[in-house]
């Protein structure tokens, strides 16, 4: 192996180490909600067949549940759900009334921590004016996000861990020392 090749390999290793280290901290959080159907704050004209929540990592099949609540706080439907990979889904009854809803979830992230959260949506059927649905004007009001709720149970901010940073720094240093030693040996 020529020393130039070796040096290149070492350089690539050093760079990939730095890249990996930079990405590592963001990967170690709890499950976070990445999307939902219906979307948070959406106004939909067709009754959803189901509610689904998708997270940024796999969920543990441990007491995951989804609840649909009306604006007056009453529970419309609630059930335990089995996750499929990163997603949990709850089928809805076909006769959903027009109105504002909260869909709340409790899932268990891969690290074993329960995570709760909720989204809000408004169901405003397009034919509400023609049909017998009560007070469509009131229910069709675009409410935006009905539930301004963040998705974690814990108050927390994502800061860096000084020890993790230190460890990464030391390891990067070691790689650089090895690189430097290799180059010196080549020179002598």
């Amino acid at each position, binding site marked *: 192996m020529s020393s130039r090749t070796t040096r290149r390999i070492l350089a690539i290793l050093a760079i990939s180490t730095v890249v990996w280290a930079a990405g590592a901290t963001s990967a170690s959080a709890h499950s976070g909600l990445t999307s939902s159907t219906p979307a948070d704050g959406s106004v939909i004209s067709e009754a959803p067949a189901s509610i689904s929540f998708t997270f940024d990592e796999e969920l543990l099949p441990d007491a995951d549940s989804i609840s649909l609540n009306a*604006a007056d706080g009453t529970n419309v439907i609630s059930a335990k759900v089995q996750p499929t990979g990163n997603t949990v889904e709850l089928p809805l009854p076909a006769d959903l009334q027009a109105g504002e809803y909260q869909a709340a979830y409790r899932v268990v992230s891969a690290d074993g921590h329960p995570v709760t959260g909720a989204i809000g949506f408004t169901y405003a059927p397009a034919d509400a004016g023609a049909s017998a649905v009560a007070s469509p004007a009131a229910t069709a009001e675009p409410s935006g996000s009905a539930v301004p709720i963040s998705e974690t149970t814990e108050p927390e901010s994502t800061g860096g861990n000084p020890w993790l940073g230190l460890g990464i720094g030391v390891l990067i240093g070691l790689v650089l020392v090895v690189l430097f030693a290799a180059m010196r040996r080549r020179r002598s």
Partner: protein
Amino acid sequence: MRKALVAAVLGSLLLLVSPAPAYAHADLVRSTPSNGSLVAKAPSTIRLTFSEAVTLDASSILDASGAVVSSHGAINGTVLTLTPSSALRPGITTATFRITSNDGHQVDGAVSFVIGKPGARGPAQSIGTTPSVATRLNGSRPGALTATFANKASSGEVIWTSPSLQGSLTWPVHARGKTSEASGVLPFSGAWTMRATLISAKGALVITTGTATLTP
């Protein structure tokens, strides 16, 4: 040369392997005095126990006015011990912390308790919530208070935040007949935002938010 290469490869592999298992947050498990409690005598230290070893970024003790009381915070494994420089005075006392758990997450939190006699609670107030869950707070002054929810929850938590407090206060939710309730201490006057997660015995979940206002 080859040795150096081998060392670099091994070093990188070690780096890739090491942080992976550390995927957990640290939670506050308990404290002495406990959050929301009434204690007859001023404690000489406040001890906070976390679910895992943490590093301490900051801690403080606040008196009833929100002023910082001189104190020293030291962490030993999972236990943070706050030692005030002089004896704590009677009244509402709050300990705040900012710690980093081994997955690199920074967690802010606080516990509040009352030393000596609880003060007057003032008139009860109802809290408007979204989605609407009839909610009543049994007072309107800082101190030991109870929130009651017209929801048959058997577990859950209420998280209180305020511009006057860094970190948040968490009250556990218990069943109380056909309603549910949560108790604790709100230490300061002003607006407090409540986020209540109410979970029924069957797992039905509602998350409701609202704001209470406390007067001095």
